[in-house]
């Protein structure tokens, strides 16, 4: 009964959001806070962000160009609802299928609600959602609020924070926050996001962050206090993460990122006394109107492993408004565990030896608040066909 009631409540309750699309630089959107509540992009949209999502993101069927059109009535929260200015609400419902050598699986990938309430310069916000993963899966778990460790549903919260804007260009926040690092992409399983543990799926950390956004420079630095949704304390990473990005041309940006954390025990390798770091460069470039390039390369340091590296290059070509073709090339050598090296365990792809992968993708923003995506992913472990249907309310 509850398994049927839960989605009904989610539908009644869950508002909408859009992904952060770093390739919006093709429309000369170099910074993020004009469209997003998060000063570095992602999750809750501002009213302006909703309007631009309708004008620039989705496929148009009225024959008008974006600059000639007005945002449709369906661009608001829950398609047609108006919200008072201090209130921003959003959410995502995402269903997915995977076909690989393990067979076919269909599953609810995301069921999240987002929101932010503002009182002058002060604001608070966050997200709540539901997730259900197999016992051995590493995703979703770090964002759990409830404590089911098996295949049961769990309540999750990826973000929650208090914050204030000051001096026009600064935003300070404290809470559980997306880590400021690298290119903020939608593909949370890209090696660059997984190996640096900086995705927006569940790699958020508790801490305090200061962001700066101007026309030519943006950046954010965060002091990481640990993830208190992981127990015991030895598994909590503490340190810093930051990025700085400069506009080197009107539609080209170059940035540098750095992250360093200490933990008594690593939650993924179970090694002890771990000092982990990631340091690198990233770029966003609009080559021409339809083509945007995103790229990132990072050195990976880990006191329990040999030196590693990861990176990706993604081209996004918009054939017509709302229809994108993407080609992503990625690489990873996460380094080999020193303890494995002592035991003469042979190096393998991604662990002491480089691994290479490629994604061929298509994404179609076919209606207001709705998109679908297909990815063909080729990696050393084999081929995966991945499809998604996404609705933000």
């Amino acid at each position, binding site marked *: 009964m509850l398994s049927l009631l839960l989605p009904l409540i*989610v539908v009644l309750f869950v508002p909408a959001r859009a992904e952060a699309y770093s390739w919006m630089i093709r429309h000369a959107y170099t910074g993020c806070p004009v469209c997003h509540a998060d000063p570095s992009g992602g999750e809750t949209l501002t009213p302006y962000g909703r309007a631009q999502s309708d004008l620039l993101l989705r496929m148009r069927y009225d024959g008008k160009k974006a600059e000639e059109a007005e945002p449709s009535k369906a661009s608001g929260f829950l398609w047609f609802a108006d919200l008072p200015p201090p209130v921003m609400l959003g959410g995502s419902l995402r269903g997915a299928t995977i076909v690989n050598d393990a067979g076919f699986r269909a599953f609810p990938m995301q069921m999240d609600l987002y929101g932010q309430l503002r009182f002058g310069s002060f604001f608070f916000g966050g997200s709540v959602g539901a997730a259900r993963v197999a016992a*051995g899966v590493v995703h979703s*778990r770090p964002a759990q609020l409830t404590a089911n460790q098996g295949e049961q549903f769990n309540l999750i919260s990826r973000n929650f924070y208090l914050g204030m804007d000051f001096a026009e260009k600064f935003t300070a926040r404290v809470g559980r926050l997306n880590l400021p690092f690298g290119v903020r992409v939608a593909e949370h399983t890209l090696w660059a996001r997984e190996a640096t543990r900086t995705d927006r799926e569940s790699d958020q950390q508790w801490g305090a962050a200061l962001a700066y956004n101007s026309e030519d420079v943006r950046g954010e630095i965060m002091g990481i206090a640990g993830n208190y*949704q*992981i*127990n015991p304390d030895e598994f909590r990473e503490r340190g810093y993460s930051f990025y700085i990005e400069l506009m080197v041309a009107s539609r080209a940006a170059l940035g540098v990122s750095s992250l360093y954390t200490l933990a008594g025990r690593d*939650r993924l390798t179970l090694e002890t006394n771990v000092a982990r770091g990631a340091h690198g460069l990233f770029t966003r470039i609009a080559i021409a109107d339809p083509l945007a390039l995103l790229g990132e390369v990072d050195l990976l340091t880990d006191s329990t492993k040999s030196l590693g590296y990861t990176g990706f290059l993604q081209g996004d070509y918009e054939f017509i408004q709302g229809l994108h073709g993407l080609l992503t090339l990625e690489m990873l050598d996460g380094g080999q565990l020193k303890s494995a090296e002592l035991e003469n365990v042979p190096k393998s792809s991604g662990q002491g030896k480089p691994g290479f992968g490629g994604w061929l993708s298509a994404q179609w923003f076919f209606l207001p608040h709705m998109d679908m995506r297909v990815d063909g992913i080729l990696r050393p472990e084999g081929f995966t066909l991945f499809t998604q249907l996404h609705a933000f309310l």
Partner: protein
Amino acid sequence: MASSSRTRSPSLAQKLGVALALAAGSLGVSSSAAAFPSFPGYIQEIYGLTCAPTCLLCHTTMEGGRDKIKGTEVTDFVGPNRGFGVFAQNLILHAPPMTISGEAAKAPTQEQLAAALQLLGTELCNKADDMTACDSDGDGQLDVAELQAGEDPDDGTAADPLCVGPTYGCGAHVAPAPVERRMADPAALLAALGVALVLFRRRRA
């Protein structure tokens, strides 16, 4: 009746349609790169463990995967070592064909895994002069006995509990919590929030 902004929200039929689609989709479980993501849960069930072992029991990464199975060859050895895959290789070596090896067309069932683990307790495994049932880490305790005791059969050190991984959620811990300390069921929490929202919207209307 005069129209209002509230009448422009998605219809009840649209909402119910999405809800039914979600209900159908909610029967699925998120997948990972692991060839058999259900194995940790199976092992927990088979041996009544307080946790699901991490994929590092048999794989070189927490994500698992067919190409990340620990691959230390089973060779002649005497004395304790850290395993590094002898357990995984023994399991594959002694399991019935086309089951645990990952070459089967379908993912093995819990019963198939249980049968394969059972064989580790009966097959002559260690290539030492004194042949015994499988003791993959050479610490003098059979693999099956270690699993039943919640210990890592691939780790020959003195402290080798299986339940060393993190637990997730606010106030989470390995042992089942007393009833009064358990967090509310997430479905019940969302149900309460949903009812509150409906009541709030009716009151405003």
